[in-house]
């Protein structure tokens, strides 16, 4: 494909992935060809690498308010989520067979759950309300003596809704049920305290916070029984074998470090931009709607839908104007299915079609938002002119 005529690209897909921060790259570089030792080796080079690894682990544990030996590094959030579900299921199968997940989890949680079902576990799904908040009463009813694990994401990757994990954690604790939360989208954006949240397992990923791809973590509370997913030479205290990806993990830790330092100001800045987009668009464009919770939502997430048009077309129209967003429309999905998250919120198929997600981040400038607000209404209008569904109004 030829390069686009619009040379400046405005990236508004930070929820998908983020660029690696320059400071993070600088931090990682020595671990590629200077301190490249294997962190399990006991010679000097190995010891150096191990030091860097443990320092990184400390940064993680301080942020999560847990002990360093409760942090296990993995390769991706998908791996962490797979491990959490499968590892807990198999280690605790003598206690019970029921696992409860929310209906809006990421595919890696849902598909792990489905696979566990084929292995004889019983999977129950908690519904959500129209804003995407899990139904606590339903969860209470589903938690029985046979339940070993509940998995509810901290915030949703598509619609940005933040879930009441603290409350869910309390309910689980009272009943002696383990709680896992996929915090991939929340990590580094807000304070996460595993004690306060009452979670036993937590997933986080590096590439969502301006760190490199290929590094992630699973927090596992001390005393929790979990089977390893990857067997081998006994890395990560025998729980996750594989030569440790030291450069990526060093980068992950540095990335978190920067997020923590900037958290307060960045949160405020993004919320302001986010609200401005939502308010302006809902006002300017008829038959447009916000998906997800209006307030309990990630500072950087905007998920909008527009009647009469399709999301992939809108995304490509914006792309032509140099703006990069994402869509979960049926046409854009590999199976031509509407987003399970939007359907779970009770949004009809025809409405889910015209959905796009705009996610902001560290390098989003005020003027990028101005530009978006100028282009988006035009793009919607253009597609509505093409659509046979909208002959009269907008």
């Amino acid at each position: 494909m030829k390069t686009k005529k619009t040379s400046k690209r405005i990236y508004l897909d930070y929820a998908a992935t983020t660029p690696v921060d320059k400071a993070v790259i600088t931090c990682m570089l020595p671990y590629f060809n200077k301190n490249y030792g294997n962190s399990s080796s006991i010679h000097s080079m190995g010891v150096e690498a191990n030091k860097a690894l443990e320092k990184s682990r400390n940064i993680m544990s301080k942020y999560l308010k847990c002990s360093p030996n409760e942090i296990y590094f993995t390769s991706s959030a998908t791996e962490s989520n797979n491990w959490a579900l499968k590892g807990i299921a198999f280690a605790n199968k003598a206690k019970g067979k029921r696992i409860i997940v929310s209906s809006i989890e990421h595919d890696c949680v849902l598909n792990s759950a489905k696979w566990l079902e084929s292995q004889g576990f019983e999977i129950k799904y908690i519904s959500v309300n129209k804003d995407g908040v899990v139904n606590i009463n339903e969860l209470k009813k589903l938690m029985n003596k046979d339940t070993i694990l509940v998995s509810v994401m901290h915030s949703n990757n598509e619609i940005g809704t933040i879930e009441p994990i603290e409350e869910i954690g309390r309910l689980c604790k009272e009943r002696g049920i383990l709680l896992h939360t996929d915090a991939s989208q929340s990590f580094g954006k807000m304070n996460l305290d595993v004690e306060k949240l009452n979670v036993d397992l937590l997933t986080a990923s590096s590439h969502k916070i301006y760190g490199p791809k290929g590094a992630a973590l699973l927090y596992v509370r001390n005393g929790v029984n979990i089977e390893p997913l990857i067997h081998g030479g006994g890395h990560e205290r025998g729980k996750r074998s594989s030569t440790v990806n030291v450069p990526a993990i060093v980068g992950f830790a540095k990335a978190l470090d920067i997020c923590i330092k900037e958290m307060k100001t960045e949160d405020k800045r993004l919320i302001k931009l986010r609200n401005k987009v939502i308010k302006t668009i809902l006002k300017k464009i008829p038959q447009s709607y916000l998906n997800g919770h209006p307030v309990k939502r990630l500072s950087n997430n905007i998920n909008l839908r527009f009647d009469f048009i399709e999301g992939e077309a809108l995304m490509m129209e914006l792309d032509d104007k140099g703006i990069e967003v994402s869509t979960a429309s049926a046409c854009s999905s590999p199976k031509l299915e509407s987003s399970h998250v939007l359907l779970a919120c009770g949004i009809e198929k025809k409405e889910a079609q015209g959905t796009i997600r705009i996610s902001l981040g560290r390098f989003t400038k005020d003027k990028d938002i101005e530009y978006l607000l100028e282009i988006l209404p035009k793009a919607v209008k253009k597609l509505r002119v093409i659509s046979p569904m909208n002959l009269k109004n907008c």
Partner: protein
Amino acid sequence: MYTDKVLKYFHKPRNLGKIKNADGIGKVGNLACGDMMYLYIKVENIKGKEVITNVKFQTFGCVAAIATSSAITEMVKGKTIEEALKVTNDEIIESLDGLPPIKIHCSVLATEALAEAIYDYLKKSNKPTPKDLEKKHESIVRHNEELEERYEEWMENQKE
């Protein structure tokens, strides 16, 4: 994933819109993703031949759906009805330098919309309909019913 040609047709669709007093209208939809395509034709008798002299489209759907519906209008404009019915979705795809495999069905929809428009024209003008066109029509009608239900509310908008 899309070729430059697809993007070109998508960004600058040809023959977009509606024909008032069209001789034939084809309304088809895709059950899987829910896209809808409307195709309008004007047919004139030129030297004893029924020629499609004007054709327009409207599409609610993805990039491929918009591009293929625009492309087919260009391909059949000026053709006789018999010629137009021979246009295959492979030819449309070829004219666009290819489509991603998952988007092939969008091009099928374009040929169906055309077939329906021609069917509509033949019916309205009390002319015989070829057998395979009749067959195509039957299957289209079946899945259209379900889509009409889905879009009922939005279609209400169109009644002026």
